[in-house]
Structures are given as C-alpha cells and as structure tokens.
C-alpha cells in the first residue's frame, strides 16, 4: 500500500517536473486557503488597474489624434474651464479607486490570518541554504526532525514558527500562502492550510547569499491517514543496514567527517550543522530541492558538493569509489 502511494506521488512529481499538471510554485495556481483568497484579490486589483490604464490610454490617443486640428494657439477661459472639470473628475475617480483598494486590502489582510485552531506546529529554521524542520507535537515523544520537505495533512491548519539563525530568509510557497520573512532575533509565524492534496514547491524569497537560488523546499499535502503514517515513520530511528554494502556505508559515514555535521538517529552520528539524514532516502529531493533523490544523485552530491552547489557549507570529503558507492547505497536505504 505504502509502495503504491509512493509510486503515485512520484508519478505526480514527475508529471509536475514535466510541467504537465500546471505550475507547482505559482501565486496563480493556488491551493492553500490564503493563497486562494489572495489570488482572487490579485485578479480583482489587476482587472481594475488594467481598466484604468486603458482609460488613460484612450484619453492619450484621443489627445494625440485631436492635435491634428488647427486650433487657436493661446488658451481661452472656456477651454481651460472644461479641462479643469475633466482633470478634477479624474482626480476624484483616482481618490475613490485607491480608497476602495485600501479598504479591500485592509479586509483581506485580516482574512490572511487563517481562521480556526492550529492542529500542527512546525518549527522552520531558514539556514544557508536549506530548511531545518522540527515537528512539535503534544508530547516530547512525538517531536522529530527532518529537512527540506514538509508533510502536512490536507485541510488542517499548520502553524509554522519561523526561526532565523544566520541571515534573513523568506518562507514562500506561493501556491499555499504569501511569504513571510525569517529574521534572526525575531519570531515570525505563518499559518498555512492546503485545500487540496498535492506537492507544492517553495523557495527562499529573500536574498541570502551565494546559493539563494538553490534554497527550495517541498510541501506535501496528503490525507490525514497518509500523513500519520509518514509522521510515524519519521519518528523512528534510521533503518539498520541490511546488507554488507550499506553496513560499510554506515561505517564510512561514521568514520569520515560526515557525522560531525549530520545526525542519523539510531547511530552515533549527531552533528547539527547540516540536515538531519535519518530518513534522507525517503525524501523526494536532496540539497534543498536541487535533485530528485536517487542513489546516483546522492553519490554525485556526496562526491562533489562544491561543483554542484558552489559556496554551500558542505565540504568535499575525499572518498574512494568503493566508499562512495557504499555511502550512497546506505543513504538511499534510509527511507
């Protein structure tokens, strides 16, 4: 059953990669409660503004067209008065339109805060250049860490506590909600709710240095039962190596500097500088949305992270071909 669902969602991912099911990171392809109301607001304001622009253009074209007539050179009182009336009318219309927009946007701002009780809280840490995630449950046993891939139950309010630790980032998944900056020294929050199941991509929207362009994340909205299964898996420690190659992989991982930065729960690797890798093989992408997770992409990334994502904080760790093969097999097995 789980395998079938995973096949389905990776088919969905592939379809979205190919652009078949529309845009998965777009304010115009809204699936979140607040993104949907924002989309309506955007369409309305853009429509009114387009109309205003067209009216101004009609006036401009008429003025240019009219200039072909021969008219007396000096302004005369009657014409000046008519112009004054026209300009005053246009200014009054401007005042009315922007007053309406101001009121509309005030009302829409209140609607931005999604109504209802938050049913899940996730601490989101923006880091150069990946996303650290900590699911906070009602009791300590239900909390767990992961990275770069947020799973949420469909139709439930999810509160994101946005924590900045290095520079400013901005959390933005346009299909679900507007963006919210992550500012060191401040605790910002954002509540999201997905109306439909799906995979929504987001990426950092505030310039944060070298790899700002490669700081993406996925939000996977799924039915509650699927979410519960996923969360239960995440709470477990890492899968033990089942064969000789993955066992060698774990040995290598622990012997090399890898473990100084990464945590794999259930092993002695407990570094916190880099993403938690306990279930890295089960995540759809690696390196903050850069590649689909495969044994090959894991091997490529491990072998030379600085060529793939120049400037990122993962150093190149020299590995022999056998070690690389073993480490990538092990990481891929961490479903």
């Amino acid at each position, binding site marked *: 059953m789980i395998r079938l669902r995973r096949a389905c969602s990776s088919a969905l991912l592939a379809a979205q990669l190919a652009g078949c099911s529309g*845009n998965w990171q777009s304010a115009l392809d809204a699936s979140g409660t607040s993104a949907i109301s924002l989309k309506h607001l955007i369409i309305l*304001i853009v429509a009114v503004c387009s109309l205003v622009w067209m009216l101004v253009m009609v*006036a401009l074209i008429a003025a240019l067209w009219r200039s072909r007539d021969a008219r007396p*050179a000096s302004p005369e009182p009657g014409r000046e008065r008519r112009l004054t009336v026209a300009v005053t009318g246009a200014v009054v219309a401007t005042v009315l339109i922007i007053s309406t*927009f101001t009121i509309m*946007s005030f009302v*829409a*701002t209140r609607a931005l805060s999604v109504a209802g009780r938050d049913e899940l809280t996730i601490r989101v840490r923006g880091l150069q250049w990946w996303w650290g995630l900590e699911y906070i449950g009602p009791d300590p046993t239900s909390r767990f860490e992961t990275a770069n891939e947020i799973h949420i139950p469909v139709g439930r309010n999810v509160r994101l506590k946005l924590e900045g630790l290095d520079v400013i980032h901005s959390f933005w998944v346009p299909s679900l909600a507007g963006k919210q900056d992550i500012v060191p020294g401040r605790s910002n929050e954002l509540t999201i709710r997905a109306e439909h199941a799906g995979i929504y991509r987001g990426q950092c929207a505030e310039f944060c240095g070298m790899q700002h362009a490669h700081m993406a994340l996925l939000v996977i909205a799924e039915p509650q039962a699927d979410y519960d299964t996923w969360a239960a898996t995440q709470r477990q420690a890492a899968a033990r190596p089942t064969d000789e190659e993955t066992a060698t992989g774990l040995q290598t991982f622990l012997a090399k500097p890898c473990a100084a930065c990464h945590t794999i729960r259930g092993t002695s690797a407990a570094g916190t500088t880099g993403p938690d890798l306990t279930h890295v093989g089960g995540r759809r992408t690696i390196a903050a949305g850069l590649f689909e997770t495969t044994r090959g992409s894991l091997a490529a990334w491990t072998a030379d992270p600085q060529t793939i994502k120049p400037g990122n904080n993962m150093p190149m760790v020299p590995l022999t071909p056998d070690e690389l093969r073993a480490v990538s097999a092990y990481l891929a097995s961490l479903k």
Partner: protein
Amino acid sequence: MNRPVAAPDTRDIDIERTRLTDALAETWKTPSGIWGALATVDHKIIGRRYIFTAFVFLALGGVLAALMRIQLAQPEARLLGPDRYNQIFTMHGANMMFLFAVPVMEAVAVYLVPLMVGTRNIAFPRLNAFSYWIYLAGGTLLWTAFALDMGPDVGWFAYVPLSGPQYGAGKRADIWAQMITFTEISALAVAVELVVTIFKQRAPGMTLDRIPVFVWAMLVTSFLVIMAMPAIVLESTSLILDRLVGTHFFNPAEGGDVLLWQHLFWFFGHPEVYIIFLPAAGMVSTMIEPFARRPAFGYLGLVMALIATGILAFGLWVHHMFVAGLPRLGDSFFTASSMAIAIPAGIQVFCWLATLWDGRLVFKTPLLFIIGFIVTFVIGGLTGVMVASVPFDTQVHDTYFVVAHFHYVLIGGAVFPLLAAIHYWFPKLTGRMMSEALGQWSFWLIFVGFNATFFPMHILGLEGMPRRVYTYQPDLPWHGLNLFISLSAVILIAGFLLFFINAIRSARVGEVALDNPWDAPTLEWATTSPPPSYNFAMIPVVGSLHPLWDDRDSLAVANGLRTDRRELVVTTLAAAEPQAREASPRNSIWPLWAAIATAIMLIWSIFSPWAVVWGSVPVAVALIGWFWPKGAPEDES
C-alpha cells in the same frame, strides 16, 4: 587679482555691448589647459562633466544587465557562477541608483537651474566642483573594486546580517558602504547648492509662481536629499563600525536589531525613488510646453503635486517591509499612505494629458519620449498601487513582479523623460541639434524593447520566480519567458546604442543650433547655444511664467553688476526683488585637493579606523587652502 573696489566704470551700465561681453568673458572664463579644467567652478562645465560621467555609468550598468540576461536566458546556465552573479546584480543596482540615476538628475540641474533662474553661476560653485570630484572618486572606487573581484555582493540594499561582519567576508560590503558615503557627500553638496540658487539667485521678478516646474521639482528634490540622506549616512557608518571596530548596532545576539537596518535603509530608500522621479516629472512639465505649443495645464496643481509627493515620500518606507513580520495594523497605515501617492501622481498625469489634449503637438523626439513616458509610467504607477496592498505584496514581494514594477517606474518614469531631456537640451549644452531621424529610431527601439523586456517579468513574478537568483532549475516553467526577455533585451540595448551613437555624432557634426530652436518659453533659451561662461550678458528681468513667449521681442534686463569681478544678483526668497550684489567665487584648484584628501581618508578607513584620525589632516589642510580669506567684501547691497 585684487583690483580697486567699485569704480563706476566697472559696472555694466552704459557700456557698449562688445566691451561688456569682452569684459565679462575675461572675468568669468575658464583658462584653457589641464589646470584650467581641473580648477574650473563653471556650473556648465561641471554639469556637462557630471552628465557625461553619469551616462558612462549608465552604459556600464547596462553591460551588467546584459550579462545577467545572458545568464538567465536558460536554466542552470554556467556563464556566471553565483559569486560573480551576486556581485553583478549588486553592482547593477548600486551603480544605477547611486552612480547614475540620482547624480544624472542632479547633474542636469547643475547645468540648467542657474540658466533657468537667470543667474551666472550656481551657489557655492567650489562646493559644486568638489561634489563632482567626490562623485567620480566614489564611482571609481566601486568599479575598481569590481574589477579586482572585490565588488559588493550583498545587494544594493545590503541587508544585515548578510552584509555584517559574520557573513559578509572580505572588504566587499565595506566597499559598498564607503561608495555610499561618497555619493551621500556629493548629493548633499549639490542639494544645498540648488536650494540656495533657487531661493536666492532667481532673476529679479521671478516670483514663486513664475518658477519653471523643473526648477520647482529640483527644489523639492533637494529637500528630499537633505532629509533622506542622513538616514543612510547613519546606516553606512554604523555598518562600517560593526565591521571594523566591533560595534553591534545590527547584531541581535548583543542587543542590536536586524530590522533597524531595514527601517533606516528604506527611510532613505523610498524618498530616493522620488529623488529620481520628481526631477523627471519636472522635466516633462517643462518640456511639454514647447511641444504642445501652450503652457502646461495646471501649473499650481503640478507644483503642489511635487510638494505633496515630497512630503508623502517620508511616510511610506514600511511598504518595503510588509513581509518582515511587523504588526499588521501598522502595515495597513503604510498601505494607505502608499496608495495616497497615486493622487499627486494622478494629478500630474491628468494635467499632462490635458496639456496634450489642448495643444497643437509637434511630434519631435522629445515629445515621443514624453508620450512613451506616460504610457509606461502609468503602468509602473498602477503596479505600485498593487504592491502597496499588504496582501497583494505578500505574493509578489521579492519576485520578478517587483523587478518589473520598479523598472517601469525608473526607466519608464525617469529614464524616458531623461532621454527626452537630453534630446531637448542637447542644443543648449553643445550648440548642436541631435539627429531627429536617429532620435525617432532610438525611441521606437527603446520603447518596444523596454516593454518586451520588462512586461513579461510581471508574469514571471506571479508564477513564483524570486528576484536575485543566479539561475533557476529546468523543472520550473520559467525558461520560455526568460528566453523571450533576454532576446527582447537585445532590442532595448540596440536602442540605447543608437542613442549613444546619435549623441556622440551630433556633438561633433550635428546641425548648428539656434539660441531657441524649440521656441521654448524659459530663460535658458534666452542666451546663446551653448551659453557663454557668464550665462547672460545682462541679468534678465522676468514678468511672467513664460518670459520668452510673453515678452517675445524685448526681455527686460537689470544692470549695475560689476564686470571686473564675478558678481551676481541676490534676490528675496518669495518676491525675487533684488537685494544685493554677491561676489561669486573664482576658479580654484583647492576643491580638487580637498576631494583627493577626502577620498584617501574614506578609502583608507575601509582598512583601518586610524584613517579617520590621520586622514583628516590633509583634508583640513585642503579646506584651509580652500577657505583662505580673500580680503574682498562678500556682497554689496
């Protein structure tokens, strides 16, 4: 040099014309040769230099834009790496804002305002010379650093902590901060000169309601500069202190505040937009008159709109921080104030439309650029209304939608009028006309290229493409539009190339211009093209808003100024009644020495705080030389 004081025969009363102009030419001349060029305080020579330098920076900034468009034309391109790209987009923004847009507007004013108000030189002409050298030094610093791979890479806004001591490695952010210091000094200097020139040196009779709209715009702009720049002076200084001597103004771990940076930056940064736009609006209001062959409709409304924009400019800065996590109620206040800016902008647009409606239009290149300006600026203004709405902004903030918006406002709203102004005032600057055929070609290329390049960016932004990314992944549906934008940019670049070719060619071999080739109504056209060193042989006396239209045959003049030393008329602030004859400073090399000493101190201070101590010694020496008492009376009533 000290001649006997005030003998009657040195005044410009009752002497024949050629003797008068010969004497004035001798008094006001800039000696030929390199020394004369370095020591001159003639506002026209400095203004031309300023404009030329600013356009060089425009071209350089354009090259950077082209590099970015090549990089973004396809996903995961490897032409530029992230490090180089981040330097390039930072350089593009900082260069265009600080080294092109603000200085070029002030440069045009340095050249034109003294002519338009009918005086012989700008107020504080040595400060004017100093401001140009400082500006040149700041630009040279930034571009030299970039050439040495030390260009700033933290964005033109340089948000902390990214630009702070912990994350901004090397000297790159310091280069940015000190370049800001250079441009602050030069912009503040010019602003002070313009305010005093406009307040105290207007031709007799030029009451407040007879000031050309462009001059009003520069007055408002100068006050904006004076009030906005201190915020960024404070900020760049605090950043350098954080980086160099370990203060913690912006470090939250030590009680500093990250958002303090954003407040200070945008308290300066938003008025900065109007510092660029208001002069452009003033240019349009002034240029539209000869091409509509009638006075601009609604003079009072146009001037009031400029002043209202200037005041509102200081109440909007938070709309740059709508997603930073400030209280929502406060955000709504700034939505209202940001929307309100549409009222003065609307007043101006409607007045221009009324002028065109009622005018008999002359379709020359400047008018084409004005029409192009109205078409594009209205789009930029309307998208401005959109991003002023907090909820709308949460989706488009920091995306290509905003990139599109501000390029519509800055290119459509300011560069189009500037290009109109160059075509319009070129004959006054050079004595030659620009080619009309090349001008119209360049207009159409720029207009079409600009819209094709920047309009699709609105859509990219709504489709989720963030700003300041050096590349994007192939699985995102952005490559089609990005390729289209990059190809369209070729048209835009071709248009600008044609404009530069036209300007360079026309300056050499263009048709010789008449004194008033457009039959324009303002005072700068009352003198020769190009004007003599003393601007006007006799100081004009103004009886209306359009002196050259209303007193077409005989413009009244004032006399009584001495011809053997530099003198100009000081008038009262409101009624412009003559008050005194004021001595105007002679040429001096000291502003250059002062600028060099200041530049050394500022650049050295990037590396050591002791530069402020030891570097101030040569600055003090230069200033003593500059202000050494001349033993001549300052002014005579």
